[in-house]
């Protein structure tokens, strides 16, 4: 009997698709031929493993669905949030100590990670590097100045913003067309003035209305009156966790020009097992901080925050689920109701089209 016929027979036997005659014949065959019997046993085992995997996968899917439903109903008690943030704070503090100790002792082969920002120059030993570009160098300054002069010359009446000398640059993206953007807390922490600039070069003054150093998230609001509400934010924010090995991409501003990069999700937790972030493998540079990490279906799964200094492609991204908590807090304390987009227009289109659709909503964040 050919092997494919045999495997087929085994499957039909297991599924109860054989008639009595076939069944008797098949059972006889097994009895009389130990080789065949072994194949049957092996294949049955294999199929049961495959079925079990499929069962567990659909169970996991259902569990995620139920979890999302309960969260959106508010059935999951979040009154522990206060203790939680305290715990996280304590834990982070503790973790930093061990990380530093480990780095010094050379116990961990991972070298320290550095936040890529101007703040990384602080004396304290930083374990992670935020990805803010503070090296807006002379050359770029000059370019900026020339560009501004040109703007002034060619369009003196246009809404050229009064600009200031920015000394860092990062990325942010709109979460609500009314002018709310998400970026990293470490981007805006010490900034006195903030401007955001879209790919077309329109600049607007913005201010941080929320920062959280624990999650490293910040919400900015565009305060310029010239900003007009935009619609059609193309991405959505999933409630469930992203999957290992999921392909992802980001766009941001490691240069003055928007830059695209792609990679994959390498771990479901971040630096030192930090479960509020993911580890991703992607090429990013100073300036990418605050950029969206998007999966192939156009869902923002995270926000780029930092990378390990001496390891290539080890980047950490804050899980986008933290945004939900941030929005809730903003609503509670300031009564600002930020509505995340609910319609995803990126799903099912190719990458080039996806980028075209979303680049208008990703902003450069600059300040001093």
């Amino acid at each position, binding site marked *: 009997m050919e092997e494919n016929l045999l495997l*087929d027979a085994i499957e039909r036997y297991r599924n109860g698709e054989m008639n009595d005659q076939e069944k008797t014949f098949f059972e006889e065959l097994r009895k009389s031929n130990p080789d065949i019997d072994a194949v049957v046993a092996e294949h049955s085992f294999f*199929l049961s493993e495959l079925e079990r995997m499929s069962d567990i996968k659909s*169970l996991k899917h259902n569990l995620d*669905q139920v979890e999302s439903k*309960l969260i959106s109903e508010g059935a999951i008690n979040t009154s*522990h949030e206060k203790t*939680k943030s305290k715990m996280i704070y304590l834990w982070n503090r503790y973790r930093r100590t061990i990380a530093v100790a480990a780095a010094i002792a050379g116990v961990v082969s991972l070298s320290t990670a550095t936040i890529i920002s101007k703040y990384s120059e602080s004396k304290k030993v930083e374990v992670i590097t935020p990805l803010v570009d503070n090296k807006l160098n002379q050359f770029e300054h000059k370019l900026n100045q020339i560009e501004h002069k040109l703007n002034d010359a060619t369009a003196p009446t246009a809404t050229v913003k009064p600009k200031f000398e920015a000394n860092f640059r990062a990325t942010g993206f709109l979460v609500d067309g009314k002018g709310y953007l998400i970026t990293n807390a470490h981007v805006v922490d010490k900034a006195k003035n903030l401007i955001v600039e879209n790919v077309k070069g329109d600049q607007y003054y913005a201010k941080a209305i929320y920062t959280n150093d624990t999650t490293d998230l910040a919400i900015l609001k565009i305060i310029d009156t010239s900003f007009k509400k935009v619609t059609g934010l193309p991405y959505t924010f999933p409630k469930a966790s992203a999957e290992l090995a999921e392909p992802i991409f980001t766009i941001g501003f490691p240069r003055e020009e928007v830059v695209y990069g792609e990679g994959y999700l390498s771990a479901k937790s971040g630096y030192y097992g930090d479960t509020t972030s993911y580890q991703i493998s992607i090429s990013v540079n100073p300036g990418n901080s605050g950029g969206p990490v998007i999966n192939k279906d156009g869902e923002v799964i995270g926000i780029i925050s930092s990378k390990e200094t001496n390891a290539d492609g080890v980047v950490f991204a804050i899980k986008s689920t933290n945004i939900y908590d941030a929005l809730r807090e903003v609503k509670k304390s300031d009564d600002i109701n930020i509505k995340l987009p609910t319609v995803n227009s990126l799903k099912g289109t190719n990458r080039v089209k996806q980028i075209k659709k979303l680049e208008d909503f990703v902003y450069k964040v600059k300040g001093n």
Partner: protein
Amino acid sequence: MSEANTNDQEHALLNGLADNDTGAIETIYRDNYPAIRGFIIKNNGYPDDARDIFQEAMIVLFEKAKSDSFVLSCRLQTYLYSVCRRLWLKKLQQQNRFNPSIELNHEIVPVEDELELHEQKEADFKLMENALQKVGEPCKSLLEAFYIEKKSMPEIAESFRYTNAENAKTQKYKCLVRLKKIFFAQYKNTD
């Protein structure tokens, strides 16, 4: 509610869980998750840890409910709590986080043996998932369509653009042999 009623109800829930019934899953989730989430957060966990641990416990319960010899010798709540507690302690240990002061006022049952079995099964699950990744496309999708989504050969032939069901079947067979080869090679390695 009388003891007998509770038992019947829990039995029905477990049968529902074994059938992957969303209603049953939701009831179990609703009744048990808040307490377990509270427990994990109180013991140095993040909300995400709570979700991961609880969902893993649900998988343990699911496998138990599916096995023929299944009897739950204690309340569902006690069982889930015991499993979560064990899983969480283990995770804390692995991550070298400080040992939490696990509260002692909750009834617990021994679950160590079952979790050992679960770990073994989890490893097999990963082997299979791994093998499926390694087998590559279009094999992965083709096999998943047939064995997991239970699509018929004519349907598969159409969506994968094979000229007919017979061709799709031949292709599926080739993929199956490759997958089995990868799976058993790994499986034997881990023995």
